[in-house]
C-alpha cells in the first residue's frame, strides 16, 4: 500500500471497533423508539387526534371506553384520547426547552471553569452552589409568585435551576479530559487551542453531556408536570398530562381514568428517557475504561 491508497480511505472510518456514535443495546433501542413515537404523536397531534380536545359533550360525561371514545370521556365529556394526544405537546416541548436552555447556559460555563480553573472556576462554582440551594420546583413557585402562573415563568425558572445539574457533570468531565496526557501532548506539539477544543475536548465531553441532558429531560418532564398539576404551569383548557393527573373531583367520584392514563404516559416517557440516559452514561464510562 502506498500513500495514495491510504488517502482514498477516509481517515476517520475504521473497522477496529472505534467509538461509533450510535451503537445501542436492545433495551436502549426500544427506549429510543418509545421516545420517537411520543415525539411523533406530539408533532402529528392535529392529524391523528380523533376529536377536538376542547370539544365538550356535557350529555356524555365520564363515559367508559367505547368505539366512539376509545378511552372514554372526562368530567366535561371531552375525549380523553384526544386530550392525551394534544397533551403530548406541552408535556414534551416544555422539558425540551428547559434542558436545551440549561445546556446552552451550563456547558459554556462548565467549559470555561474546567479549562481555565482558578478564579473563573471559583466564581462559577459559587454561583452554581447558590443555584443548587434552590430546588427547581421552589424556584418555579417563586417565579409564579412574581409573574403569575404560566408555562413561561415555570420553564425559565426550571431552566435556571437545571443549570447546575448540567454544569457540574460537564465540569468534572472537562477536568478529566483537561488533565489527560493527550491534551498536554497536543499543546506541546503546537496544535492551536481552538482545534484542541474542537477535536479533543468537545468530542470527549459531549457524550457525557448528552447522557446527562437526557436524564435531566426526565426530571424536567416530572417537574413541569408537577407544576401543571399544582395549577402553576399550563393554563386554561390546554391539555397537559400533569394537569390531567390532577382530576381531583373525578377521582373522588370514582372516575380516575384520565388521571391514570396521563400518569401512565408520564411514567412511560420518563422511564424511556431515563433508561436511555443511564445507558448512555454507562456506555461512556465503559468506553472510558477501554480507551
Amino acid at each position, binding site marked *: 500500500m502506498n500513500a495514495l491508497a491510504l488517502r482514498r480511505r477516509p481517515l476517520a472510518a475504521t473497522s477496529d471497533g472505534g467509538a461509533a456514535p450510535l451503537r445501542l443495546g436492545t433495551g436502549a433501542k426500544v427506549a429510543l423508539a418509545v421516545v420517537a413515537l411520543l415525539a411523533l404523536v406530539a408533532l402529528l397531534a392535529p392529524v391523528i387526534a380523533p376529536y377536538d380536545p376542547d370539544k365538550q359533550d356535557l350529555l356524555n360525561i365520564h363515559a367508559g371506553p367505547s368505539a366512539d371514545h376509545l378511552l372514554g370521556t372526562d368530567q366535561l365529556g371531552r375525549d380523553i384520547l384526544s386530550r392525551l394526544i394534544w397533551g403530548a405537546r406541552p408535556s414534551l416541548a416544555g422539558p425540551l426547552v428547559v434542558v436545551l436552555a440549561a445546556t446552552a447556559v451550563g456547558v459554556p460555563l462548565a467549559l470555561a471553569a474546567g479549562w481555565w480553573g482558578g478564579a473563573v472556576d471559583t466564581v462559577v462554582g459559587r454561583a452554581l*452552589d*447558590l443555584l*443548587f*440551594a*434552590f*430546588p*427547581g*420546583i*421552589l424556584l418555579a*413557585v*417563586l*417565579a*409564579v*409568585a*412574581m*409573574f403569575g402562573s404560566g408555562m413561561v415563568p415555570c420553564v425559565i425558572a426550571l431552566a435556571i435551576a437545571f443549570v447546575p445539574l448540567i454544569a457540574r457533570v460537564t465540569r468534572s468531565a472537562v477536568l478529566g479530559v483537561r488533565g489527560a496526557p493527550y491534551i498536554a501532548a497536543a499543546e506541546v506539539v503546537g496544535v492551536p487551542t481552538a482545534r484542541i477544543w474542537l477535536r479533543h475536548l468537545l468530542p470527549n465531553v459531549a457524550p457525557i453531556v448528552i447522557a446527562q441532558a437526557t436524564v435531566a429531560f*426526565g426530571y424536567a418532564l*416530572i417537574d413541569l*408536570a*408537577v407544576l401543571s*398539576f*399544582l*395549577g*402553576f404551569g399550563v393554563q386554561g383548557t390546554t391539555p397537559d398530562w*400533569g394537569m390531567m*393527573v*390532577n382530576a*381531583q373531583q373525578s*377521582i*373522588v367520584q*370514582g372516575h*380516575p381514568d384520565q*388521571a*391514570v392514563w396521563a*400518569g401512565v404516559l*408520564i*411514567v*412511560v416517557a*420518563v*422511564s424511556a428517557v*431515563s*433508561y436511555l440516559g443511564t445507558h448512555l452514561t454507562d456506555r461512556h464510562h465503559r468506553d472510558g475504561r477501554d480507551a
Partner: protein
Amino acid sequence: MTVNVERNLSPPGVDLGRFPSRGRARALALARHLGGLVALLLASSVVVFLSLQLAPGSPESVLFGQQQVPDAVREAVRARYHLDDPVPLQYLNWLAGVLQGDFGVSIAYQQPVSTRIGDAAATTVLLAGYALVLILLVGVGLGALAALRPGRVDGLVTLLTGVAVATPTFVAATLLLSYFAVELGWFPVYGPGTGLLDRLWHLTLPAVALTIWAASFVARVTRAAMREQLAGEHVETARARGLAERHVIRRHVFRNALVPITTVAGLQAAGLIVGTVVVDQIFQLGGLGQLLVTAVNQSDFPMVQAICLLLVCAFVLVNTGVDLLYRVLDPRLRAAAGARR
C-alpha cells in the same frame, strides 16, 4: 530496633502521615464549612427577598384591588409593610425579624405569618420524617437484597425499582388515593387527622406516595454501590484473610457502600422538602405545601417569602448535614485540608 527510614527518606517538606494537631485541623475545616453555610443561607435569603420585592404588584394592589382608598389608609398600609424604606433597609428589617421568628404579617389572613406556619410546619416535618424512615428501610433493604442475591431476586428488585423510579410522586399519590382511599376506603381521603396516632394514620398514604420513587432510587444506588464494593480489592483482601462472609459484608461491603448511600439518601431527604408540597396539596394535609400554594394563588408575599425561605434553609441544611456526615464516613475527606492541591 528499626527506625522509620522511609519517612526520613521522603523529600524534604513533604511529611507523610504526620498530622500534628488533628483536632485543630478538623475544627478549622468545620469552621470553614460553617462559614460557607452561613454565606449560602444569607445569599439565598437575599434571592428570596429580592425576587418578591421586584415582583410586579405590591401588597397595596393585592389588598385594595381596584377600590378607591383614602390616602391615610394607604399610608398606614405602606408603613405597616415598610414599603417606603429603601430596599436594603427593608431587607435588613425583614432579616432581623426572621431571625427573631417574626416573618411579618400575612396579607391574606391579616395575622402574623409565624402563627399560620407553626402548625403547618409540624405536619410537614412529621410527614417528611415518616417518609424518610420508610425510604431508608425499604430502599436500603431492597438494594442490599438485590446486591447480595444475584439472579432471580436481583432481577425482580431491578424490574420493580425500574418502573417505580419512573413514577413521579404526584402520579403515585393520585393513583394511591384513587385506589386505596376512594376505591377500597382503607385510608382517609383528605385531612391531617387529630392526635398522633390518627395523624400517622392519615399520613400513611401520603408517606407511601413519597416513598415509592425515592426508595427505588435509594435501592438502585445501594445495589450498585454494594456490588462495586463486593468487587473491590479490599474485599478480596478480607476474604483472603479468612473473614466470615457476614463480617466481610458488614465491615467492608456495607460500611464502604454507606458513602454513596448517604449521598443519595441525602438527596432524597432534600427532595422530600419539595415532595411534601405536592403530596400535601393532593391529600389536603394542611402542611407547608398547601399553605404555599394557597399563598402563591393569593399573592400573599410575606407568606410566600417565609415558606420559601424555610424550605430553602431546610434544603441547604440537609445538604450540609450530608456533607458533614461524609466526613464521618470517609476519613479521606476528613482532613481534606491536609491534601496537596
